[in-house]
């Protein structure tokens, strides 16, 4: 067993690309809070003998019920990028409002609840107006509100203290709120959990919740996206006030009385819980689950400390230390997560490339370099940017996509004049015309789209079935690349990679793992499914003449393959050419019954060597800047023709790269070959010597209309 075998085994079977994928998930933010909670429970569980008894848990759950609501209140505000220190005082005022209604005035439970909520939301509204609309600093404003509301509390409390103490409300519901238990668990906890569930749905599914998160995540971007930032922030504080008031209501039901310091200092406890749960102080990151994890941590911690007989001041010392530690971890996590992710996400695979076919002039190889493309004409020179592919209709009009998210139309037969045909919004890559003259195109980052002759842009699909064990969400289409359409309306299209988005596609070349796939969209059933997986940057797709199979190119794999989707050989995968000297791109039919394809760039010995050295590529990705990386050459390519046996019949080069060296696609139409290029500023037109001057691809494919 030599070192190459070891390297191969290590990079083939150790799934370390999963580390990066796990780190890129949002739920990974929960890891530290959950570990903290486990640690707290483990420590107290082993130190305190009866920590897990029912009474102890009942005590903790009662605490969770009230603290949980307060933490949720803080969570919403923190999500919006602010903070609310006045919740302790709002809590106190709500307790007071409830008790005045119940004990002093003898009103019903419903009225008391309304009074408490109204008190809390009014206080929240004041906060919201000051912070949201007048843009005061949240921390200081709510700190001052804490004192103001506390003073109000003291003033009101003095006036009602005796009447509160003497009053005895008669209400079964009230008593049930206080002492009701379901399976030994306080009813109050169920109320909190129900509210948490509702909030979870709002924050993660509803527009309002998304607005709050968006504003907290990036205030300016949220504003630019048309969100009413000020109103959203104001609403967050109203939510916070309301939830704090609800907590106060439950507390009032449980204790039935209030003291001079009811609710004092609760904001610090709730803040500790929120930060311990991993809710970010910067805003935009947090969830209901995190709030609950943090609440349980703090409840377990403080109840454990009480059980251990730790004196009060020591208790606040520990809570203070925990708060600083939690904030510290949060700040570090925020700062370094992206850095770590950037260094570990790129995970190279071990690839041994077959020896590349010879291309030298005079070598006699079918790939030998020539200068046939020296005389290529330019269409739309300077107008186009990035026409990856093009298609011609029966009236010789040429359609192609641009980097700006448009589909352009050049009028036939000379293609001198042009118009903007349709605006898609993303960069159209592969482009094809179906039987009814609809343009079907793969739009990078968006999915599969159709443009009708009436210029209507229709989304066909942007997601496929999710694989059972994938960590990253592989249901969305990240880089749909090229497509072809079968007679019965199935669209087979390639997705280059599921691990990188459209802006980072060259990174996939350094991995050279099978990250890509071929997906099928059925126009009749409107369903999408993944047909072939684990392909190395699948690119061009072309239905073969037998209508039962398609050819496809794997760019970084430097090979052409054929796959049967129908007929007796259904499901067979066959490699047609595996030693290409470059990276194959689109494939299309030629007038003589064969197939054209292009190489978008040429292999280099250095990169071939690097592919056998994944450790080298990994070090490169970690240690040097992206613009210093060894990337594949994609500046110089050629057009090739092959037959079904996999023989190369023709090669068109631009020796020296003087006129039209960069080619990603070809389209034969009436004796001419039209050349697209993803980094070109034009479409090339090459007159094929001896080709049928009347052959129209659409007629040949779909029959004369």
């Amino acid at each position, binding site marked *: 067993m030599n070192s190459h075998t070891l390297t191969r085994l290590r990079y083939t079977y150790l799934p370390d690309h999963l580390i990066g994928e796990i780190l890129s998930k949002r739920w990974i933010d929960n890891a530290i809070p959950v570990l903290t909670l486990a640690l707290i429970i483990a420590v107290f569980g082993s130190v305190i003998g009866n920590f897990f008894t029912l009474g102890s848990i009942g005590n903790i759950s009662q605490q969770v019920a009230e603290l949980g609501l307060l933490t949720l209140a803080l969570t919403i505000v923190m999500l919006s*990028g*602010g*903070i609310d220190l006045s919740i302790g005082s709002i809590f106190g005022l709500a307790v007071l409002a409830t008790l005045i209604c119940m004990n002093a005035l003898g009103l019903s439970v419903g009225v008391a609840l309304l009074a408490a909520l109204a008190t809390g939301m009014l206080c929240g509204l004041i906060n919201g107006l*000051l912070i949201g609309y*007048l*843009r*005061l*600093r*949240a*921390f*200081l*404003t709510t*700190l*001052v*509100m804490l*004192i*103001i509301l*506390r*003073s*109000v509390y*003291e*003033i009101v409390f*003095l006036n009602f203290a005796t009447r509160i103490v003497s009053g005895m409300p008669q209400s079964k519901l009230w008593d049930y709120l206080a002492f009701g238990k379901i399976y030994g668990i306080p009813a109050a906890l169920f109320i909190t959990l129900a509210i948490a569930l509702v909030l979870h749905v709002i924050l993660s599914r509803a527009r309002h919740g998304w607005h709050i998160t968006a504003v907290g995540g990036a205030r*300016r971007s949220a504003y630019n996206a048309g969100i009413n930032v000020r109103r959203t922030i104001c609403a967050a504080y109203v939510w916070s006030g309301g939830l704090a008031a609800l907590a106060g209501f439950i507390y009032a039901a449980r204790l039935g009385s209030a003291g001079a310091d009811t609710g004092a200092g609760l904001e*610090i406890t709730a803040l500790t819980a929120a930060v311990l749960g991993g809710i*970010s*102080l*910067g*805003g935009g990151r947090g969830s209901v689950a995190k709030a609950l994890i943090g609440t349980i941590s703090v409840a377990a911690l403080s109840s454990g400390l009480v059980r251990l007989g730790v*004196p*009060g*001041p*020591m*208790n*606040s*010392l*520990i*809570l*203070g*230390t925990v*708060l*600083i530690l939690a*904030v*510290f971890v949060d*700040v*570090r996590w*925020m*700062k370094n997560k992206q850095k770590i992710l950037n260094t570990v996400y790129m995970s190279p695979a071990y690839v041994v490339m077959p020896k590349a076919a010879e291309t030298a002039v005079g070598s006699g190889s079918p790939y030998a370099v020539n200068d046939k493309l020296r005389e290529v004409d330019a269409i739309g020179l300077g107008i186009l940017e990035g026409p990856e592919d093009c298609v011609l209709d029966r009236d010789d009009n040429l359609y192609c996509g641009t980097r700006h998210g448009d589909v352009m139309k050049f009028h036939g037969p000379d293609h001198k004049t042009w118009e903007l045909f349709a605006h898609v919004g993303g960069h159209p890559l592969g482009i094809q015309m179906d039987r009814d003259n609809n343009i079907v195109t793969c739009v990078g980052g968006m999915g599969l789209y159709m443009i009708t002759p009436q210029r209507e842009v229709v989304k066909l699909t942007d997601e496929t079935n999710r694989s059972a064990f994938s960590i990253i969400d592989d249901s969305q289409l990240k880089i749909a690349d090229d497509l072809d359409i079968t007679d019965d309306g199935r669209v087979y299209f390639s997705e280059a990679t599921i691990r990188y988005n459209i802006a980072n596609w060259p990174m996939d070349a350094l991995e050279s793992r099978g990250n890509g796939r071929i997906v099928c969209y059925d126009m009749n059933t409107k369903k999408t499914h993944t047909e072939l997986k684990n392909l190395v940057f699948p690119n061009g797709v072309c239905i073969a003449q037998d209508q039962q199979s398609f050819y496809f190119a794997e760019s970084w794999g430097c090979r052409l393959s054929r796959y049967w989707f129908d007929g007796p050989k259904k499901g067979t995968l066959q490699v047609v050419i595996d030693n290409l000297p470059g990276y194959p791109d689109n494939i299309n039919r030629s007038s003589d019954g064969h197939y054209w394809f292009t190489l978008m760039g040429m292999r280099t010995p250095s990169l071939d060597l690097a592919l056998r050295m994944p450790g080298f590529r990994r070090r490169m990705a970690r240690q040097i800047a992206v613009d210093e990386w060894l990337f594949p050459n994609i500046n110089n390519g050629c057009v090739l023709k092959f037959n079904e046996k996999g023989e190369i019949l023709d090669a068109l080069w631009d020796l020296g790269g003087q006129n039209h060296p960069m080619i990603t696609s070809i389209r034969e139409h009436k004796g001419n070959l039209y050349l697209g290029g993803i980094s070109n500023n034009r479409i090339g037109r090459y007159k094929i010597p001896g080709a049928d001057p009347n052959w129209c691809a659409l007629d040949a494919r779909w029959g004369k209309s």
Partner: protein
Amino acid sequence: MRTMRLTQEGVVFLIALVLFVGFAITLTDFVSPGNLMTLLRSVAILGILGLGMGLVVVGRGIDLSMVAVMVVAVSWAIVIGQTEIGFATGILAGLIFCILTGLVVGVLVAYAEVPAIFTTLAMGSIVYGIGRSLFFTLDVQNVPPGNEWFAFLGRGTILGIPMAIIAFGIVAAVLHLVLRKTRFGRFIYASGDNPQAARIAGLPYRPLLVTQYVVSSCIAYVAGLVMAASVSGMNTRIFNSTMIYDVLLVVVLGGIGLAGGRGGVRNVIVGTLLVGVLLNGMTIMNISLTYQNLIKSVILLMAILIDTLLNPRDEQTSQQGDI
């Protein structure tokens, strides 16, 4: 900008003057020499604390742990003084405690990058917890008898001016010179005005931050000593009061913008005068402590509001998580 600042400071000064005149007319005994001395002495401690807070706020920070540090360090000094080790050593121990606390806060803020507001808020409970569980058990510590020099620091007078006011004057003068004339002072303005630019320009940004918190906690200690000297003891329950917000009130009212880089010692003095007049007037009017708190905090809210309107937050240099 400069005229705007002057306007705010001037407005506060005018309000103080108007209040003073108003109280002088409506309240008997307000302008008596005895009351004026009481007024000044009572706000001297607030003023000294305000100077420390002002320094940190100029550097775009905030120190909410000042009162806790003051209470615990001075109490510890007194507790040591009650033993045979001696009061002088105790005072030294308290000073070392303050420096250490300031260092911890500074390192957490500067190097661990924990927002100052959280560090100092939590540090307040931590310091108080340490004091309560390790240094002292009683609520009130009494200065051991036989330290006349210490009592003079609080109750003595020079040329008829109480020592507390003189201490305030000395701290103010020193701080003014440091802020205006030394490199350290100018660096604090620079780093408070635009931290990123200060760092790029090569200022020792992090050591600067640490120094700020060490200085502010030492100033808190001085305030504590003056307080202990004037009442012959230290009441640790002050920690639970809203004193730290009064300190903030002094700074913000005086016109030191919370965005950092603006204001100076003069602003603290003006703020102290206003708060002093206000507190004294309300006390003479026999307004209960609760109502006093309410009025004070509403005024503080107004001050923050005006501060925000006059010194809008700079979105370009405000940090993520800067709340």
